[in-house]
C-alpha cells in the first residue's frame, strides 16, 4: 500500500475557500441489538454498525447521491445527517456551525433549514389530514404564515409542485402515488429549506411518474438553490440527478466522486459490480455473469479488513483481510489516467470535496496487474 497518496478524506483541505453546506466527519451510528436478560448481565452488548465512520460533504446547490444495497446503512446515514437520529460518534457541521449536539430551539431552527422527503408517501402523510393541513403544518410550527397569507402560500406551493388548488382539501388517499409524493415535496419546501434529504423519493413510483418527480426536483433545485442528499438504490436515477455520488457498503463509503467519475470510470470493485448488474434498456442484452455473488454480510460483525472482501471478485488474500482500506484519491494511481485538469484540481486541493476517492487495496496494485484482472474489460 503506497502512502504517498494525495490526500485522505479525513483532512479536508485547509485552504479550501468555499465551505460545504453540510459536512460530516467520522460519523457513526450504532444500534444496540435486542438481547435476552441473561446476555445483558453477562455478555458484551452487540451493536449493529449501521453507519461506521463516514466522511462526506454536501456543497451549496449540489446534489449528493447516496447509493448502496438495502441494509448498507444509507437510510440511517440520511437520518443522522438530518438529525432525526443522534449520531453515536463523529461531528456534523451545517453552514459552518456544529450541529452534532443541538437540542431544543436550536434544533427546531435547524429543522427549518434541513428538510426530509420520505420513500413511501402514503405512510409519511397523515391519512386523517387534508393535503392543505399537511403542508400548512410546517408553516405553523415555524410561525411563517397564518390566515389568508397561509392560504395564499399554500396555493403557491401547490402550484409549484404541480398540484391544483382544488387539491387543497383532499385527503391523501384521494391522490395517486406521484401526487402524494408531490405533497411530500411541497411540505418540505414550505419552510424554504437549504438542504433536503430525500430518502428513496421515487422508488415506490412507476417509471413514467418517476421521471415527472425527478424533473420536478431538479427544477426546484434550480429555482431555489437547494442542496439535496438523494438516497436511492437505483443507480440510473442517482446518476441522473446527482452532481456527486457516494457508494456505500456495510456502513462505509467505498467510493465517492463526481458522477462522471463514478459512472464513467468506476474504480472500486463493488461499484463496478453494481453498475454491471443493472438491467439495461439498451446495449448488450441477456445473461451476463453476475459479478456479485451471495449477500452482504451482517453489519453486527462485519468482516475484518475490507468489508467487501467476502464478495469481492478481486480478492487479494491477506492484504484485504488484514487492514481496512482508507478512502484515498484515485488520481495518482488510477489505471486510467484522469484528464489533466482534474489531476490539477485535486493536487491543488481546490475541489477537495469533488475528488474521486476509493477505499480499496486493489487500487494500490500497479495498473498493469489490475488491467489483467479487470472485470470490465
Amino acid at each position, binding site marked *: 500500500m503506497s502512502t504517498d497518496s494525495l490526500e485522505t478524506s479525513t483532512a479536508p483541505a485547509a485552504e479550501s475557500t468555499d465551505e460545504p453546506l453540510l459536512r460530516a466527519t467520522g460519523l457513526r451510528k450504532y444500534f444496540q441489538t435486542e438481547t435476552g436478560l441473561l446476555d445483558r448481565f453477562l455478555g458484551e452488548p452487540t451493536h449493529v454498525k449501521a453507519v461506521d465512520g463516514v466522511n462526506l460533504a454536501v456543497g451549496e446547490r449540489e446534489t449528493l447521491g447516496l447509493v448502496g444495497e438495502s441494509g448498507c446503512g444509507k437510510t440511517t446515514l440520511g437520518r443522522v445527517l438530518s438529525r432525526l437520529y443522534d449520531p453515536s460518534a463523529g461531528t456534523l457541521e451545517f453552514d459552518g456551525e456544529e450541529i452534532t449536539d443541538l437540542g431544543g430551539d436550536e434544533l427546531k431552527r435547524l429543522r427549518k433549514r434541513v428538510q426530509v422527503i420520505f420513500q413511501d408517501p402514503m405512510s409519511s402523510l397523515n391519512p386523517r389530514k387534508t393535503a392543505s393541513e399537511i403542508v400548512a403544518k410546517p408553516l405553523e410550527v415555524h410561525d411563517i404564515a397564518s390566515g389568508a397569507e397561509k392560504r395564499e402560500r399554500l396555493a403557491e406551493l401547490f402550484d409549484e409542485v404541480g398540484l391544483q388548488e382544488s387539491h387543497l382539501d383532499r385527503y391523501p388517499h384521494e391522490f395517486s402515488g406521484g401526487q402524494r409524493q408531490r405533497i411530500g415535496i411541497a411540505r418540505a419546501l414550505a419552510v424554504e429549506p437549504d438542504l433536503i434529504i430525500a430518502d428513496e423519493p421515487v422508488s415506490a413510483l*412507476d*417509471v413514467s411518474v418517476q*421521471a415527472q418527480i425527478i424533473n420536478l426536483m431538479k427544477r426546484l433545485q434550480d429555482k431555489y438553490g437547494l442542496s439535496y442528499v438523494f438516497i436511492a438504490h437505483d*443507480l440510473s436515477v442517482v446518476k441522473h440527478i446527482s452532481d456527486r455520488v457516494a457508494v456505500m457498503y456495510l456502513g462505509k463509503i467505498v467510493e465517492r466522486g463526481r458522477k462522471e467519475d463514478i459512472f464513467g470510470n468506476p474504480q472500486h470493485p463493488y461499484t463496478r459490480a453494481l453498475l454491471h*448488474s443493472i438491467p*439495461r*434498456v439498451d446495449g448488450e442484452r441477456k445473461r451476463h455473469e453476475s459479478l456479485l455473488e451471495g449477500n452482504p454480510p451482517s453489519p453486527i460483525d462485519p468482516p475484518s479488513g475490507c468489508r467487501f472482501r467476502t464478495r469481492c471478485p478481486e480478492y487479494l488474500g491477506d492484504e484485504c483481510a488484514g487492514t481496512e482500506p482508507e478512502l484515498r484519491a484515485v488520481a495518482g494511481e488510477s489505471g486510467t489516467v484522469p484528464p489533466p485538469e482534474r489531476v490539477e484540481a485535486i493536487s491543488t486541493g481546490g475541489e477537495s470535496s469533488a475528488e474521486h476517492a476509493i477505499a480499496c487495496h486493489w487500487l494500490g496494485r500497479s495498473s498493469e496487474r489490475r488491467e489483467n484482472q479487470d472485470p470490465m474489460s
Partner: protein
Amino acid sequence: MSEPLLDVRGLTTSFETGQGRLTAVDDVSFSIEEGEVFGVVGESGSGKSVTALSVMRLLDDAGTVEADEVRFDGTDLLSLSESEMRSVRGGEISMIFQDPMTSLNPVMTIGEQIAEVVRHHGDVGERTGFWSEMRRKYVTGTSTESRSWRRAIELLETVGIPEPEQRATEYPHQLSGGMRQRVVIAQALAGDPSLIVADEPTTALDVSIEAQILNEILELSDEFGISVMLITHDLGVVRETCDRVAVMYASEFMETGHVDDLFEDPHHPYTEGLLASIPRIDDDREWLSVIEGTVPDLIDKPPGCPFQDRCEYAFDLCDRPLVEYELDSNRRARHAVRCHRENDRVRVDESGHVTDVPDEAVAALERRIEAGDGSSNDATVAESTVRADGGSPTGGFDETERRGDRDEY
C-alpha cells in the same frame, strides 16, 4: 408452425365495483411458444397481474373472466373443472410471486413446503391424502429418507442454495430475500412445469440479487426448456431476459413484438414515451422526457384508444375502437401495434404526426370494426386491406406496411 404452448385469445376480465364496471383486462390476445420467455410490461394498475391470474383462473368469483380461448398444451383451461385446474396449477403451470415472504408459509420448514408440492405434482408415489398430510404436518414431519424430501433437497441444489440439507430444515425467516426467492423458484420447479408465470419476481430485491435471480430463471428455462411469462414494470429487466414482450397500458396490450424490435424501433406512442422516460445509466440528458397526465379511469372505460388524452400524436381516429395493426418488414417476430397511426392509408409526416386522414382510411377501419374483430388473422379483414398499389397480404395476415418515411422517427 407448431402449436404454441399457451394461446390466449380475446381475454377480458372485469370487476363489478360500487362505482361501475371496471375492465382490468380488455380483449387481450397472446401466445407463448415452448421454451420462450415472454414479457408483459406495464405500469402499476395496467392489468398485468390480473392477466396472469385470469389465465391461471385464480380470481375465483371476484372477477368475470371471458375469453374466446385459453388453450394450454392442447387443453382448454376454461373448460376444466376446479379440481383438474388445481392439478395444472403448480404442476404444468406454476407461479412465482413478487414477495417471497408472503408466498412462503412462515411456520413450515422450506423442505416441507417443497416436499409437499413434490408429492402432489411430482409422481413420487407417496400418499397425499388429507390424513397423511396432517400426520406429516403435525406429527412425524416428512421423512428425510422419503423420495419427496430427497427431491426437495435436489431442487434446492438446482436453484443454487448452498448446504441444501441444512437449509431444508430452516424456516423462511431464517433466509435472506434472495434465498427466499430461490426457494420459491425451487417450489415452482417441483411440479416439473412447462410454463412458469413469474409476477414481478425480482421487484423486492436489490440489483445485485436481482441479477442473480434473473440469471437463475433464464438458466432453468434453458436447461429444462421451460417457458416463462415474466410480468414486470422494469423495462431493463425485460430487455435483458425476454424473447418477446407485450406492453400493457390501461388494461390493453398496446404493442407486442420481439424485444429487440420493440426497443430499437417502438411504434406505439406509449412505448416510445415509456422508453424515453427511463433514466439510463449511459445517457447525459439534463431532463427526462415525461408522459404528461395520468392513466385513465378504468371504470366504464370509453371506447377508443385509452392513451389518446396523453398522446402527442392524437388525431381524429383515436376515439374509434382500437384494432390491431401488424407490421412486417424484417421483424424478428410478429409485431402488432394497436394505434390508428399504423393504418396504411393514414398519412404521417416525418415527426410521426398525422397530416391527413383520407376517407378510405376511415372506411377501411370501419370495415374492420364491423367485422367485429380486433385481431388480425381474420380472412375478411385481410381481404379488406389489400392495397390499391398491388401490395397484398401474405399468410392470411393483415399487413400494414411501414412506409419509408416512418423509419426515421
